[in-house]
């Protein structure tokens, strides 16, 4: 079996590309980090990959709003190429800033463009309720089988590190619809009461509605999440590994292995 090829897209300010490539490599994929200018010159580069990953960081400084400028670039120049990528049955993963970019480019909701969503975007990721960037570990519950990247995963313990990660929908109805469609695939939980569907700070680090930490598109093959699975591959990345609380392999690796297995 040949290794699935992963295109890890980097732009000015992307800063989690190296460890994300490492996570894919550890999982058995063949990642390549590619600068946005290369795909703007030749969108065919996407065709050579099975997986597209938008890693974390501060694309263009998160100036204007987190992920906004790269999302705008994608919308204006790469929307067709990405729609093709998706309709070819491939996988798209956006982590943290990548999630912000995907949602603002309309790749997760809204049919791919502002024109397709005349009433305006359905959802966004905005400022944390604390008004601050925060780095902390969170408990997550995965639900449903919509996203192949989350197959077989019930829960994960991963770090978040962001200022603009609060998931907000334009109306309560949108939130209900997404829930019913099984697209609200990851939520923050309180380990003391894992069934609580609407936990507060600090378990829900940003005040996301319904504690949403990640969503997928209608096909399930496009996934965006705020936590960083690539930061928990090795046991010594766990904040309490010296207390014997970490398993041999980090929780995040399973997602990357799922991506590889999908093409196996």
């Amino acid at each position, binding site marked *: 079996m040949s290794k699935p090829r992963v295109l890890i897209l980097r732009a*000015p*300010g*992307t*800063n*989690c590309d*190296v*460890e994300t490539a*490492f996570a894919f490599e550890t999982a058995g994929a063949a990642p390549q980090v590619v*600068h946005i*200018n290369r795909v703007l010159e030749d969108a065919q580069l996407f065709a050579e990959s099975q997986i597209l990953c938008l890693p*974390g*960081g*501060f694309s*263009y*400084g*998160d*100036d*204007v*709003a987190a992920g*906004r*400028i790269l999302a*705008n*670039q994608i919308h*204006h*120049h790469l929307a067709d190429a990405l729609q093709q990528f998706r309709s070819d049955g491939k996988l798209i993963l956006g982590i943290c800033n990548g999630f912000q970019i995907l949602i*603002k480019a309309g790749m997760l909701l809204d049919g791919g463009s*502002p024109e397709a969503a005349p009433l*305006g*975007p*359905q*959802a*966004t990721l*905005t*400022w944390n*309720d604390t*008004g*601050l*960037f*925060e*780095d*902390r*570990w969170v408990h997550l519950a995965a639900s449903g089988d919509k996203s192949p990247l989350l197959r077989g995963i019930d829960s994960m313990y991963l*770090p978040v*590190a962001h200022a603009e990660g609060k998931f*907000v*929908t*334009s109306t309560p109805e949108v939130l209900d619809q997404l829930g019913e469609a099984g697209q609200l695939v990851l939520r923050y939980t309180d380990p003391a009461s894992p069934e609580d569907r609407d936990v507060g700070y600090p378990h829900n680090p940003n005040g996301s509605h319904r504690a949403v930490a990640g969503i997928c598109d209608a096909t399930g093959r496009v996934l965006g999440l705020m936590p*960083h699975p*690539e*930061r928990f*591959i*090795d046991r*010594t*990345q766990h*904040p*309490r590994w*010296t*207390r*014997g609380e970490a398993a041999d392999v980090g929780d995040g690796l399973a997602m990357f292995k799922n991506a590889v297995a999908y093409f196996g």
Partner: protein
Amino acid sequence: MLWEVDIYPASGQPDLAAEALAAEAHDLGLESLQLKAGRGYLIEGKLDRSQIQTIAEQLLADRVVETTVVAEVGAAELHAPPQNNMQAVHVLPKPGVMDPVAESALRAIADFDIEVEAVRTLKKYWLPELSAEQLDLVSKKLLANDAIEQVIAGPLDFDRLQVGDAYTFELQHVAIRNLDDMQLADLSRSGQLYLQLAEMQTIQNYFRELGRDPTDIELETLAQTWSEHCSHKTLAGRIAYEGPVEPDGTVGTRQFENMLKETIFAATLAIRKKLGAADWCVSVFEDNAGIVRFDEQDNIVFKVETHNHPSALEPYGGANTGIGGVIRDPLGTGLGARPVCNTDVFCFAPPDTPADTLPAGVLHPRRVMKGVVSGVRDYGNRMGIPTVNGAIYFDPRYLGNPLVYCGTVGILPRDKSFGAAQADDYIVAVGGRTGRDGIHGATFSSAELTEQSESLSGGAVQIGNAITEKMVLDVILVARDRGLYNAITDCGAGGFSSAVGEMGEKIGAEVWLERAPVKYEGLSYTEIWISEAQERMVLSVSPEQWEALSALCASEDVEATIIGRFVPSGELTLKYHNEQVGRLPMEFLHDGRPPVIRQARYAPQPAETLDLPAPADAYHEELLAILGSLNVASKEWVIRQYDHEVQAGSVIKPLVGAANDGPGDAAVVRPKLTSRRGIAVSCGMNPYYGDLNTYHMAASSIDEAMRNCVAVGADPRQIAILDNFCWGDCENPETLGSLVLAALACYDLAVELETPFISGKDSLNNEFSYVTADGEKQTIAIPATLLISAMGQVESVDQCVTMDLKKAGNVLYLVGITRDELGGSHYAVTQGRTGGRVPQVHVATAKATFLAIHDAIKANLVQACHDLSEGGLAVASAEMAFAGSLGATLHLARVPHDDLVSHPVSLLFSESNSRFLCEVAPDRAADFEALFETIAENGPLLANIGEVTATNRLQILTSENNPLIDVETERLKAAWQKPLAW
């Protein structure tokens, strides 16, 4: 046409900016300030309403959570108050101040195929009716900082965005040949040269001999190169010292030709000589950062810088460019190191200082702290470099002059560790454009701060643009590996002037100033030359390398421009459109500065005893007071704002323990994801000890930095340290004497512990002067503040240890002798007691202890390890217990101590150095003890002093089993977390 787009939170969404400001207004004494906050953009260009509407809705605002008001500047709808009786106040960056968001927006608008000419951001506030006085206060102290921002109350009244006016070239000379001494001194001050009279005289003589006056650019070049900031002339100069010269305090005299060389550097030389073939230093005190060996493929580098004066005036921008600047040091070391982690240490006045007691020109310490923390956060996080270690110290003497230390560790291949400019190489500027920002930073940082500094030196204050630097970092690392340049250095203090001057020192250089890309028109040739605009690197590139380098940079939209050539002339020649504007021999520039000879004296404080009250029955109030003191208290509010895990190398995080919130001793990172080898980073600093004796302060700081590193598992035989001296006015012989004494301690400790200094930096003149209401001049000097930063190495990160207690039933060993050393301790500070013996380092014991602790950790005998520092045994045991969500019972009578100790306060709170509290499983206790058998010092070095319990109480008992301390750990933790839980 000039459009304004105002953006507000949509109804039902929180107004986070207004909430934060209302909280800060409270600190200013303005109760319940009701305001609304918006952000906006001014967009100039030939675009119509539908186009601006598209940009507003699809780019600038987030329609899910925000609403917009779009109109031409001045239109009535922009000024419809959200509630009756509210007035609008606009805050805009001053012309020329970096506005990264506007730059990004300008580029993003181009993606819409809409052409605009200029963009500027603004903040818009709706305030209730206030008196003119209150409005002024709110504008200046809350909404804007006059150093970089302008405030416009009411509607904006301009119709175009200001751009620079064209510059008309005119060569400027400065007539100095006929000036008398007083006039020379005046010129030095009014021209912001901040040179000493002897230096001005040397320059005067040089040009008298040439038979002409210097041009302005020549004089500026000399001032930059000879500035304290760039040349460290005080500490690297001649000093006649009188004071203690031996560790035991024996008084004598020392004559230094070059004080730093004969103390700090000399220690490293001695260690390297002793190590011989096993020498693991690679390049020390030569490059922009010190370099040491890491593994078979790579070296690691470390540099710590200060950015104190800019941070005093504009805390956000000062700290922002402080971290941005120090990141460029490793990047400018060898052929360029990849940054792997950052450190930050700050000193502020207490955040609860009453606002009405502040002298004019001083920002409130709380505002300074918030600004500094956000400045480091926004730059470090954007660069993708984890900020993993730091400290914050509070003392009223940092009021007008806070300290901001920023450090960066980097990794670089062994074969890329050295570079040198070659004759006929091009001088290439890479990265940000040159602007009028940051003029006179180098000379300004070498001057004393006064209440006028704000208006005088505003140009020295800058805002960084981290993404420009990240783009530079990305291409430089590729260019390095492809061999596309021969040398690299950063453009820091002094700008091109310093960078080109340093690189071409041994060759000569010709610079074509008009070629440097500028942010806007209107810069004079001199401004281009000395601007300290951020995010620029200077490369030495051969003509054969140039094409590939240029193409690589262009492929990632990084600007790279040839601005001159290293011409083998031995001279620095500056040209503007082919006209020579300056010409100086490299020799005069670098070696022409007259030697500065200074007197230094240190009279040790007369030994004063610290009077202790009669032994009491209980000490938990004292313990709670120390835990709740600002220096000891949890810094979680700060730490969480830094991404401390990006790059995924995090092994020991700054916060550790059962609830991820205990105070770790040192951070450990794995710089290579494919390797188990780690780097431990820690620091040590004890300004209070310095008030009593700077020798023991320096010694204690080194011991503290090392024991923090050792406590997590670093090998004490391979710890490199850095010195950062922040001192007051060293023209004052007593002040300089206290620094020399600290440097002598650095020599003694480094040599004995075999821990080399590899880099350092000093910042002198940290004093703030102001005039009181009575017209009296007051000066506040900072306490002598030496930061020691340590970089250790861990063979395999899987051996690392944290400080949180792990398991009930385990044994607690106290390693190290407790002495009667309460001088400068946190017990003394919190109880308002003065005098006492300052902690000393018993070097031979320290060295043996570090080795034994390391052996124990390597042998997997240690479950938890914490060093004893501020607050001594009581605080260390409390921290270990609450971090581990466990209890502990300790027996004070078993604590190993010297003969002078008898009082329980000394046993509980003494801050004697080289001590650790270790948790060991009962079945490994014998193995652990055996490792320390040979280090006895008038008695055993360690004792089993108690055990870990499941009680969630910290109990410290007397020999009669009476509890001196018996408190729930939750209560201890709450006291520790409360002060800075913002």
